[in-house]
């Protein structure tokens, strides 16, 4: 099994069809396959254990991904936004590698490690010219990609995804060649994130043209969406918020072709998705939940569920707008307590997942239990109809005097207030309770702010008294990473200052 099958089938079915648009150049599936074969021929000549991309999104990302797969070498996309010190550590962990992209930085940070460094232009040119040298794929390597987790809680872990995981995901969720020739997908997630890889695989298999936007800016996104008649887009919530701000401010970009918006990556505020559903009344919204270790999506809330929830009178149905939907038909999900025993609907615990696409494996060890279940370290619960609600990272749960408190329930109450733009609840040291609730609040610009007593009253009106914050911090903004994930560790540090 090898993911190169995806590109080979796309090129077999429609060699002349445009598969990728990047920086003004249009690539057919035939050209992409030829370049990937050329890249593989080159890569097989190098002494390297990994093929690494240290670059923004470009045509080099699919060519390196499929080239590495054909050459039988694991692909490692690196986060170019990392600080020098952190990046140097990761470069040392993959030596010797073929590093494509920021050659200067790779050489400076990890000299004498035996890396072969190639800049983007040279890599693509060499790949295109070497296609004739390719013999046959090397099928003996079963690891497709090694992706370093973001490491917000410690040293980044090297998650392994095997060809069987990624192919299992694609074959189980995407119908081959199901996209219309006019379909186009705007991709603005970074290439080092699992969503950047799964976007390439899904779109190539469906034969939906990819239009790449390497660095997200709302005006660039709107311009490209109109110019390329984009039909599908994936956004993290903060990107959607910024696009909607531009539309509110009078952007006249023509988005009539935009049929579907998928979102995920970080927490979607209820107010934002409700406004989006009003602003795009004919657009199909899909909320996707997944992890690096699960080859992307494991549960989704589809377009019909969004519209049903939007118009529902039944509070259980309207609440589903805050869920991540139901598990894919190809995976199983269970909620378990601290002893690993399954919990009934309505009770919150740790989310476990099992399925072909679930790797749950790191370079150092596998996290799967003996029956193949992966403990996600995400907390959540299922409703009676099987809709999954997330309740933060299991590590983020606040334990106050033995009582488990999910930050999300407090944050929901706060952000529902019209004056509050954003809020985070974290565990803070407490002499009385061991740990207690601390909240950080961001008021909307121009809104009348609430004092500490009013904030506590807001929570007291809706939640049990154990949820009342012991400490409160007011800030202009909360720290997020580029995928819209709240950096809770940094928020926690505000309370230790």
């Amino acid at each position, binding site marked *: *099994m090898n993911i190169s099958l995806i590109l080979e089938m796309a090129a077999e*079915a429609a060699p002349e069809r445009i598969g990728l648009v990047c920086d003004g150049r249009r690539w057919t599936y035939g050209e992409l396959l030829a370049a990937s074969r050329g890249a593989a021929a080159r890569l097989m000549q190098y002494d390297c254990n990994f093929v690494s991309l240290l670059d923004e999104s470009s045509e080099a990302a699919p060519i390196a991904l499929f080239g590495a797969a054909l050459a039988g070498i694991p692909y490692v996309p690196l986060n170019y936004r990392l600080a020098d010190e952190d990046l140097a550590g990761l470069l040392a962990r993959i030596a010797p590698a073929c590093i494509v992209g920021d050659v200067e930085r790779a050489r400076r940070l990890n000299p004498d490690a035996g890396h072969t460094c190639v800049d983007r232009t040279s890599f693509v040119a060499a790949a295109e010219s070497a296609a004739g040298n390719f013999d046959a794929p090397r099928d003996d390597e079963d690891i497709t990609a090694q992706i370093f987790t973001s490491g917000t809680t410690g040293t980044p872990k090297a998650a392994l995804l095997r060809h*069987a995981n990624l192919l299992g995901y694609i074959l189980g*969720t*995407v*119908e*081959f060649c199901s996209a219309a020739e006019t379909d186009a997908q705007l991709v603005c997630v970074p290439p080092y994130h699992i969503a950047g890889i799964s976007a390439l695989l899904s779109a190539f298999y469906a034969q939906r043209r990819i239009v790449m936007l390497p660095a997200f800016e709302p005006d660039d996104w709107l311009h490209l969406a109109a110019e390329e008649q984009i039909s599908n887009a994936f956004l993290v919530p903060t990107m959607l918020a910024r696009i909607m701000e531009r539309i509110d401010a009078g952007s006249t970009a023509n988005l009539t072709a935009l049929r579907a918006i*998928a979102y995920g990556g970080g927490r979607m505020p209820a107010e934002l998705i409700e406004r989006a559903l009003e602003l795009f009344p004919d657009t199909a919204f899909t909320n996707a939940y997944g992890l690096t270790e699960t080859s*992307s999506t494991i549960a989704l809330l*589809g377009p019909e569920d969004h519209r049903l929830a939007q118009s529902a009178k039944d509070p259980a149905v309207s609440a589903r707008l805050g869920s991540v939907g139901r598990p894919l038909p190809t995976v199983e999900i269970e909620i378990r307590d601290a002893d690993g025993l399954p919990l009934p609907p309505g009770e919150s615990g740790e989310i476990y997942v099992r399925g072909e696409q679930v790797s749950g494996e790191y370079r150092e060890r596998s996290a799967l239990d003996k029956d193949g279940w992966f403990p996600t370290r995400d907390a959540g619960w299922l409703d009676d109809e099987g809709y999954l609600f997330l309740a933060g990272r299991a590590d983020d749960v606040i334990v106050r005097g033995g009582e488990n408190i999910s930050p999300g329930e407090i944050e929901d109450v706060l952000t529902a207030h019209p004056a509050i733009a954003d809020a985070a609840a974290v565990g803070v040291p407490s002499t009385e309770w061991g740990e207690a609730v601390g909240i950080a609040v961001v008021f909307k610009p121009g809104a009348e702010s609430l004092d500490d007593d009013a904030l506590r009253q807001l929570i007291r009106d809706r939640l049990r008294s154990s949820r009342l914050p012991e400490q409160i911090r007011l800030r202009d903004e909360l720290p997020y990473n580029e995928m819209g994930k709240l950096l809770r560790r940094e928020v926690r540090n505000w309370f230790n200052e």
Partner: protein
Amino acid sequence: MKAGTKLKSAVCDTEVMVIRAGEGVVACGGVPMAEDKPAETGSPDSEFSGGTLLGKRYVDAQDTLELLCVKPGAGSLSLDGVALMTKDAKPLPSSD
């Protein structure tokens, strides 16, 4: 036969990948398929000449075996002499 194995037709260009392995003889055009393509290729039996379609999944009536067509051809697929049928999956919205 195991999941991931590629089988080639002896009578046409058809290649399939085993998604779910089952018991029995998988044939294309009425002639058993194999991992290595035979040097001499015949022509499909008229009973099994409907052709295969790229990207389609094929299953038996008992749903014990599932094949993905990764290269199309003129022959059609069977398990122990019984024609396989295409499987239509319920489409999911794109989440990537």
